[in-house]
């Protein structure tokens, strides 16, 4: 960060000990020093790559039916074929994009809306806006996920939905419906952090030194609320992926011939009783591994963003035990 370089050029000092990394660098380097977090980061990076260039990697056309129906895994079809003779491996790869997009997209929407509402509620704590917002969140929280999302998403099947003048695809409706379910979680996290943060003496001190309300919110509150929200997001993405898979498995999510992991699971549901395991095991594995990757990151983020844990690490670094956050000028 530019601010820190100015000070250091004035006095180089022993860089290893005195180095205080910018918060972003520190978080990243702390994550890279944890094997599980590193695994999670690499895994997610790989998934994102597959999602990005997916169709180029797929050996076959994922929608191309063939006479080789329900063939077990072989060199030609690594994950076998489904009952229509489509290559499961190709469908898995193409499905990655939809599964991740729905998972990340719905989490991002929920994070933005829930975070905003939660901060608002926290700032107005105890007054009418807080009560109204949080009771509304309770109501949404009480929705049974696997009824609410399939109904909303199912309504959009085979129908052109418009949000005002903007046409909305069924996939967008599915993403939106999942995000609604996650909004209360983010709102609660944001509200709790806002409340805790507002009670901090440094907030009072900042006011006593002449900070304005927008200063307090943007510069003190937001950075401190962002941490817990990021941790929550890391745990919500895999949940959203699972929700998408579950809804698609029930048949109300991603519609054929489009492929998502849950959709593939659904296609293979009847086969499993006949002992044709490949069409269900591979998407299930993909879901499990994805959830694990994101959880690894979430766990590490939670540890790293905890200020007390951070202080411990910095102390250890200063005494030479572990060096974390070396700036390396």
């Amino acid at each position: 960060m530019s601010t820190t370089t100015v000070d250091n050029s004035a006095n180089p000092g022993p860089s290893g000990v005195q180095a205080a990394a910018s918060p972003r660098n520190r978080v990243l380097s702390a994550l890279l020093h944890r094997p599980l977090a590193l695994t999670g980061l690499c895994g997610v990076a790989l998934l994102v790559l597959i999602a990005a260039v997916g169709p180029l990697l797929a050996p076959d056309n994922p929608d191309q039916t063939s006479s080789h129906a329900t063939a077990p895994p072989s060199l030609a079809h690594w994950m076998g074929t489904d009952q229509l003779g489509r290559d499961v491996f190709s469908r898995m790869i193409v499905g990655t994009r939809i599964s991740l997009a729905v998972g990340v997209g719905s989490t991002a929407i929920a994070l933005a809306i829930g975070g905003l509402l939660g901060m608002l509620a926290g700032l107005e704590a105890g007054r009418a806006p807080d009560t109204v917002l949080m009771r509304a969140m309770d109501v949404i929280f009480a929705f049974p996920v696997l009824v609410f999302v399939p109904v909303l998403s199912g309504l959009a099947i085979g129908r052109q939905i418009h949000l005002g003048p903007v046409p909305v695809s069924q996939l967008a409706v599915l993403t939106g419906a999942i995000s609604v379910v996650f909004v209360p979680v983010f709102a609660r996290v944001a509200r709790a952090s806002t409340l805790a943060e507002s009670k901090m003496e440094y907030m009072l001190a900042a006011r006593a030194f002449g900070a304005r309300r927008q200063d307090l919110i943007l510069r003190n509150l937001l950075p401190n609320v962002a941490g817990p929200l990021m941790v929550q997001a890391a745990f919500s993405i895999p949940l959203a992926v699972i929700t998408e898979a579950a809804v698609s498995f029930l048949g109300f999510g991603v519609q054929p011939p489009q492929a998502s992991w849950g959709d593939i699971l659904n296609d293979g549901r009847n086969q499993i009783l006949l002992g044709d395991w490949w069409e269900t095991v591979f998407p299930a594995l993909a879901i499990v591994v994805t959830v694990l990757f994101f959880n690894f990151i979430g766990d590490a983020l939670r540890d790293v963003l905890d200020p007390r844990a951070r202080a411990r690490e910095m102390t250890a670094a200063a005494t030479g035990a572990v060096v974390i956050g070396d700036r390396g000028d």
Partner: protein
Amino acid sequence: MTDSDSTAARGPGIRTGEPLAEVTGLSVTFGNPHAPVPALREVSMRIDRGEAIAVVGESGSGKTTLLRSIAALVPRPFIRSGAVRFGNRDLLTLRERELATIRGREIGMVFQDPVNCFNPAFTIGYQLRRVFRLHRPEPAGGTDAEIGRALDRVGVDAAGRLARYPFEFSQGQLQRLMIAAACFAGRPTLLLADEPTTSLDVTTEAQILGMLRELRRDLGMALVLVTHNLALAAQLCDRVLVMYAGRIVEEARVADLFARPAHPYTRQLLRSLPVLPRQPGRLYSMPGDPASAADARRGCPFAPRCEALLGAVCADTEPGLLPTGVNGQLAACHRYDTAQAPTENLAGKAPA
């Protein structure tokens, strides 16, 4: 304070300078309408330009609430009545936006616990720059040069330290940093200090006190120091306000307070201080528990612990702040009520 003749000529006041700020009839009640928790009751005080006032009292006596009220930091709904005049404005009627141009700029504030007053997520430099830029345009040499000079004044070497986080500093250093921000970010004419040395060890405390005295003299700031330490008040201040149960019970010049404490509470408080050489016998300890402004009782709030009760009047009516006849000293005790003929000579109860 040095010119007692002119003070006497001016009447019963102990004031010498021109008024800088004035608190009148301030009542603060926390809690909600169903469970009110009074914290301050009808408190009035005047702060003159450049003078140092100590506010002493037990925990819960309302010292901190009074101090925060002066900077209008107490949430508006809790303020039941009263005004805080600063210059020609009543701070309690201003909007936050207007207050933001006064706080930090004209009124500096130092808190009790420096560790929690810095945001742990940001470097010291970042936080100091923010405060300095709030109150002065970017100076020619840059804000960092300005901060460097300020830190120099409070005895912290700025070189290479601005990039560090608050937890990398000691409590004493953080308190120095906060004092630097309070005194040099703006050009305060009033410094409010809430037990600024309570969390520090005695050596550091002495250094910080010396520094505060110097800064006050050099910058011509008035000081309101909240403390429960009478010795501190004696070292640093011209005048002392003694608070009890959310009220001011005695107001006196420092020398008078120690030589002729007027209120029985002050007397008993002074008796409970250990002195050297050690006096024979057990050290005096004040009976009873500290009262809070929230205790609803008739009569004088100090009556249950008072060792110089006058009789039924103490239990029945609450005394106002009355002149004792010496140097403008005021005390909230019935014995100074001229309508009530004093029935007892307090001298008999003076400290041993």
